[in-house]
């Protein structure tokens, strides 16, 4: 862990953009990946999507 935090961090943030924004504000380089659970995580919608593959 010491090695990790004592070296330059290369960060990929997935999902909630707020975490990436906080790191950016602190001057840390971060790449944000937009991601969210398929069909908003709704099981009913996921089963409909399964039927329509």
């Amino acid at each position, binding site marked *: 862990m010491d090695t990790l935090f004592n070296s330059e961090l290369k960060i990929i943030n997935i999902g909630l953009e707020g975490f990436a924004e906080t790191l950016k504000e602190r001057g840390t380089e971060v790449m944000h990946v937009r991601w*969210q659970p*398929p069909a908003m995580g709704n099981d009913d919608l996921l089963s409909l999507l399964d039927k*329509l*593959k």
Partner: protein
Amino acid sequence: MSKIDQANQEAVKKMMMSRPVWVDIGKASEVIPGMKDNLFLHAGPPITWDRMSGPLKGAIIGGLIYEGKAKDTAGANKIAESGEIEFSPCHHYNAVGPMAGVITPSQQVFIIEDMEMGGYTYSNMNEGYGKVLRYGAYDDEVINRLKWLDEVYAAVLKEAVHLAGGIDMKSIIAQALHMGDDAHNRNRATTSLFIRTIAPFIVETEWGKKTDYNAPRLDLSNVSEYFKNNKASAAAEVLAFMHSNDLTSLNAIMAACKSMALAAHGVEHSTVVTTMARNGTDFGIRVSSTGDKWFTAPANVPDGLFFSGFKSSDANRDIGDSVITETVGVGGFAMAAAPAIVNFIGGSPADAFDATNEMYEITVTENNNFNIPAMDFKGTPTGIDVRKVVEKNIVPRINTGIAHKEPGIGQVGAGIVKPPMEMFIDALKELAK
């Protein structure tokens, strides 16, 4: 490939094969099949008078005055409430209209013929900016301009397009995307190309040579002092008006896009959206394989830049058929081609690229007619797949004008708006039955 994926490929192939050509202009009641004296068409999905928004009511009132069925607001309201007039979506008659989209029986309409897939689509004349019927304004200035548009402007254009032998609208859209337009909210290039193409024929028309005629005149002194005192020919006045209005080409472009969307409709098993439209109260979509069924939800209020003196609380809910452009892969889907549009709707040029990139997530293919030079000539994202919209939780990106919520006022700004997700979920449920 699944049968749905195959069907979607077929739908977008038909959409891109469509070849809409502006061939004529005619009176709505005479050229739109099914149009009749007591029928008023409007934008968006079906709606009754009591649920209509301010700008749509304003346009209906103006339409009744224009048609001579009412003398004033009170009389028009009475007729509209009585049930004497039938209201129906433009889309039910293969027509489209920007904002309120009201097409009345006497109005002159563009006639677009699909030279590849067959069939005709229609739209009315664009009135320009400011106080106009499509934004719900209906004072004497608005009514007088409508009369000039129908009796002079349309007459000249009709003769001109006959001389031209038709104008290829798809070619104009494709070129305009290379000149900084999105073909929805930014139309400077489409309109310039439109004028450049038809102008030689306008000056050749017999109607256009007239300087003294018994029809309404339009005050064009705002374009140039030269047009004072009605000394110019009708052709010069028509060209000056076209030049004064960047939206001159929009209605014909929309009818051309309707032609493309229509070509993709009716493909069994397809989950591609073939209609998106708003009436100022509801947003509605239709899907290729679900026939004429509308899936609707309350329309959202656009967010954007407002003209001086107006604010976001003045804005009406989203309204208009112009989202037919996004339905076929231009407009907000081609924003990367039109970074200057952010001056009009807000945001930064990078936002324009983000918008286009995001739309690839929810579409079937890259368009083989429309492409974006700054993205290595990548085809625009085309053919919205209901399944992808729900799975990715990404709704189509739409650029739009903003109407005042009260009738009689007009446009107050322009911006962006999100369609409601509920109607895509309802469509998904129907498709899964």
